[in-house]
């Protein structure tokens, strides 16, 4: 025989906010990616410390201009993602579209600059360990960025068609979290890859 | 539950222990013949004593807890409340706290003992009068070089190391291909041989004898057959051995061995093997200049006899399937002379 009840009928059947478990799902996925990058950066230092010269003889240190410029659209993509996320919470279609669209455009700009930059590398991943670790870190991070952009694009299209409900708004809201983590992880990695050799000196 | 039944596994353990304990003392960490192995063995017995005592206490507590009559606690109506009295919990808290404290102390004692031994081990060796032996791991044999400042004193052999008793010997470890591990338990722990790196350890025999070692890092198909022998002898004996090893190969004395030498020099053997004093100067296989003097062939796989040498040459793949010595076709009438020749290279 039941004695007591706890009635929850007054509670909403959804919550487009950080209270939803999906926030945790996205956050953990972002943490996994960041962990991956952290290990790769640790590897970068390990490899660097196991040789005398860095970059290895024959390899040219990647030019700093383009990647530094690329930081601008990347940084601007953060407030764009935030706008989309707030728009989702407020059920504001215009804000969502603006935020998602701007985020995509800025991320695309970042990506384009990066791909242009790659053409100027004078070393391949199979040339030596400097090439291997540099290309692998860049490749992995780019794959993550593209994947996240893919998610964002799908959400953008869904919002565009207008056929979305609370569930999709939640998706827009939490999509930004992975972006913050994956794109945010780039800033320290940028320092390591482009400034590391200069700052920490070449011959050991 | 009756306590005696827990003794059954104990009996089995004893059977297992006895059946191996009475085996020979080759390649054993429990039969130290060197300074380093000795230190480690002492540490081992200390750890074993302390941790066995811990084990006995824990299991005894378990058995008692199952069989005791729960006096006092019997009064607590656990079936209904599922919560023991505060006094019980307080007593337990104290006991667990003390046990944890004791555990921490024991662990720090073991830690200090372990670090102390490690420190001691690194302080032995490096003294005057030491010998440097460079060991290069290959799939599935050991290239041995005795280093010296005099180029004419550098000695190359394979699969067997001789050392003088009482002198510290530095084993300088390299690898030609994959990761191997140099291990002669009667003398010291192991050291991995890692390509592109140099690892070192010091050994020092404290009495004459011969001990078997084995590669202790999985290195492919014939990892199971990558053994070696270390022979410790008195200083004069060692000098004699070293001097003999530095000489070029003995010239064949009779027709049979001369024929054998001819067969060798005309076969593919020379592409891989070196016999100093002849034209054979291959460098990817064991140096055969004094192969007759070794205790075993094929890295400890077979005792060194004429029959085994012949069998090895005839079909090395049968003895060590997958090893890197090609099957060189040797006519059956040439086989014995060849084996005789190699056996004569003492």
């Amino acid at each position: 025989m039941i004695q007591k009840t706890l009635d929850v009928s007054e509670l909403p059947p959804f919550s487009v906010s950080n209270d939803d478990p999906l926030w945790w799902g996205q956050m953990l996925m972002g943490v996994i990616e960041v962990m991956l990058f952290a290990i790769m950066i640790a590897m970068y230092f390990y490899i660097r410390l196991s040789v005398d010269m860095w970059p290895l003889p024959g390899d040219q240190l990647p030019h700093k201009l383009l990647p530094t410029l690329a930081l601008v659209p990347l940084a601007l993509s953060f407030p764009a993602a935030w706008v989309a996320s707030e728009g989702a919470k407020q059920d504001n279609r215009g804000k969502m579209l603006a935020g998602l669209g701007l985020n995509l455009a800025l991320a695309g700009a970042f990506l384009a600059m990066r791909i242009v930059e790659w053409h100027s590398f004078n070393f391949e991943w199979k040339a030596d360990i400097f090439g291997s670790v540099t290309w692998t870190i860049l490749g992995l991070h780019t794959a993550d960025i593209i994947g996240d952009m893919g998610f964002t694009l799908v959400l953008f299209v869904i919002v565009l068609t207008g056929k979305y409900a609370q569930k999709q708004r939640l998706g827009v809201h939490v999509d930004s979290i992975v972006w913050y983590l994956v794109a945010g992880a780039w800033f320290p990695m940028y320092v390591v890859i482009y400034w590391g050799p200069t700052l920490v000196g070449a011959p050991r | 539950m009756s306590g005696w039944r827990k003794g059954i596994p104990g009996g089995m353990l004893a059977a297992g222990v006895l059946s191996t304990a009475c085996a020979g003392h080759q390649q054993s960490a429990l039969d130290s013949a060197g300074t380093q192995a000795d230190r480690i063995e002492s540490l081992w017995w200390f750890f074993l004593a302390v941790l066995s005592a811990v084990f006995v206490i824990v299991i005894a507590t378990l058995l008692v807890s199952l069989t005791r009559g729960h006096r006092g606690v019997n009064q607590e109506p656990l079936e209904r409340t599922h919560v023991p009295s505060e006094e019980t919990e307080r007593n337990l808290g104290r006991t667990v706290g003390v046990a944890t404290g004791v555990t921490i102390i024991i662990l720090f004692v073991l830690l200090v003992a372990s670090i102390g031994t490690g420190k001691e081990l690194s302080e032995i060796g490096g003294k005057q009068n030491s010998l440097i032996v460079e060991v290069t791991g290959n799939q599935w044999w050991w290239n041995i070089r005795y280093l010296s400042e005099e180029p004419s004193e550098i000695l190359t052999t394979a699969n067997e190391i001789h050392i003088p008793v009482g002198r510290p010997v530095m084993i300088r470890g390299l690898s030609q291909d994959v990761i191997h591990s140099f291990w002669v338990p009667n003398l010291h722990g192991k050291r991995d041989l890692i390509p592109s790196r140099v690892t070192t350890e010091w050994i020092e025999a404290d009495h004459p004898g011969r001990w078997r070692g084995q590669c202790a890092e999985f290195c492919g198909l014939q990892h199971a057959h990558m053994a070696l022998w270390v022979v410790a002898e008195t200083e004069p004996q060692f000098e004699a051995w070293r001097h003999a090893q530095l000489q070029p190969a003995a010239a064949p004395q009779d027709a049979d061995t001369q024929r054998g030498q001819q067969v060798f020099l005309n076969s593919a053997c020379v592409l891989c093997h070196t016999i100093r004093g002849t034209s054979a100067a291959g460098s990817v296989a064991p140096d055969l200049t004094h192969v007759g003097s070794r205790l075993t062939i094929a890295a400890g796989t077979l005792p060194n006899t004429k029959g085994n040498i012949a069998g090895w040459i005839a079909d090395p793949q049968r003895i060590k399937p997958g090893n890197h010595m090609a099957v060189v076709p040797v006519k059956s009438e040439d086989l014995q002379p060849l084996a005789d020749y190699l056996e004569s290279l003492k």
Partner: protein
Amino acid sequence: MTPIIEAPGETVDPRAGTNEEHRKKLERAWSRPGRIFGFFTATTHTAIGMRYIITAFAFFLAGGIEALLMRTQLAFSNNHFLSADRYNQIFTTHGTTMMFLFAVPMMEGMAVYLVPLMLGTRNVAFPRLNAFGYYMFLFGGLLLYAGVLTNTGPDVGWFAYPPLSGPQYSPGKRVDIWAQMITFTEISALCVATELIATILKMRAPRMSLNRLPLYCWSMLIQSFMVIFAMPAVMVASTIMLLLDRTVATHFVNPAAGGDPLLYQHVFWFFGHPEVYIIFIPALGFVSSIVEAHTRRGVFGYPAMVLALAGTAFIGFGLWVHHMFATGLPQIGESFFTAASMMIAITSGIQIFCWLATIWTGRVRMHTPMYFVLGFIFIFVMGGLTGVMLASVPLDWQVHDTFFVVAHFHYVLIGGAVFPLFGAFHYWYPKMTGRMMNETLGKIEFWILFIGFNMTFFPMHILGLKGMTRRIYTYPPEMGWDNANALATVGAYIIAIGGILFIANVLSSRKTGAPAGRNPWDAGTLEWAADSPPPPYNFEYLPVAAGRYTMWAPAEARAVVTGMRDDRREVLVTSIMDAEPQHRLVLPGSSFWPFLTALLVGGGFVGTVFGFNWYYPTAVAAGVGLIGWFWPKAPRDLRP
């Protein structure tokens, strides 16, 4: 004890109607479309959990058969039962199967089944991700065994050190198959870890504040965080370093081009050591659950137990170099890892002491699950103590890579994880099937397993000290290792007999076991409030927590949740610390997309074994799958 809900005709929740109507609506909301299609679209945690358990057990049998084959070859010196190549493939596959295809997925599967029930909710937070993870695990295992059965099984040890596993010394597809199989199982583990964390933090029964969380749920929460932090490392080691070196000629671990084989070891073991605690920590949760029910009291020292779990987890990330003591690293550096490895014994010790205290003051009932707990204590403590020996650098220099280590890890793995697992099988079988297992047979199983295990692995300590190295397909007679090896082989067959008895018990009890009812053990946690076996929706009315052991609370203190919709898959989201209800959540129903996506992505990964360029179509396939997965369906009804 009286269950919460009795009478069908009664009305608990005015919104839901009578209990009968309520049940019918729940059944409809949680049902599956048809038998075959339903099978591939299932997303309930009990269905997916059960699949994990059965598949992982099948791999356990495969690993066990491999073990028997190895032991037969090693039974006496110079044996010719297996060739060198065959033996090397078999020991590698045995280790790989047991670690990646049995131990971790089994622990994940048990958690997927038990955690939502123990938390008092209806499903995990991400049901489709759950299904996807399972299919990835299955496909990974099939990939490996496709290789094994076509003589392309890996043969480089379960951790595949380069350069041996690199392109030069291991040509062919063997190692590639191994490396990509890891990707599958790693994705699977990450999926489960993600959903368990989200579920345990956000979907608990109301009022199940953190200090009331069952110890098993603490275990799984902590273990899941370990998975999140450790698994990326194995991906870097196997898929990035090894596979890229092998397929696109990078030079991470190629010594000829400046790469360092030790780098691989560091990254692998950074994952590898936490991996063994990932296997072990859930078992500790099993032990606590079983001990509580069999001593009629809660485990003593709850905060200390939680600390011990958390301490083991975090210190566990600082031990990895103890697998590399023989590589010539600076001793002072290695000694840091000795110190940490010894300190972790404190956390295990605390657990043992608390359980002993619980047993000491509890009203002990000796049923089969409790036997396995006692076996665990005996075997695991011995294994843990040999671990402390291995933690010492000088000692490890002698026994590293010998059968002494094999003895240690089988003691801790089988004693520390498999014995609690078998106890858990016996303990939760009534919940999963509605029937009790045979007690007498269970006790016989236990003794055969216990005796067989010690007979097999105790002599290995001596063998290691007497010079028997690991991973050798044969050994010469003059070493004197014959007797101990023969004894070990006999023991292995005895273990197999125990395993067969267990299977017989499982199968026969389905038909002839005594009906179990909801709570045959009179245990305290919430899974025992559901029917046995639980319906797809677990509970008719979600329970409210009344302490750590709601089922032991007096009936007056217990409550249920009302006001939820029963015509759709609705669950309750609660706050992290105090489990105050925050909002309701509608979970997705059956879906074909997880299976399809796993098929596409899995197929793509299999392709990458043959060429790097397969990654591109795999990405596209993943995209297609995910779009289908997330594309909004016809107007989803989200009215309150």
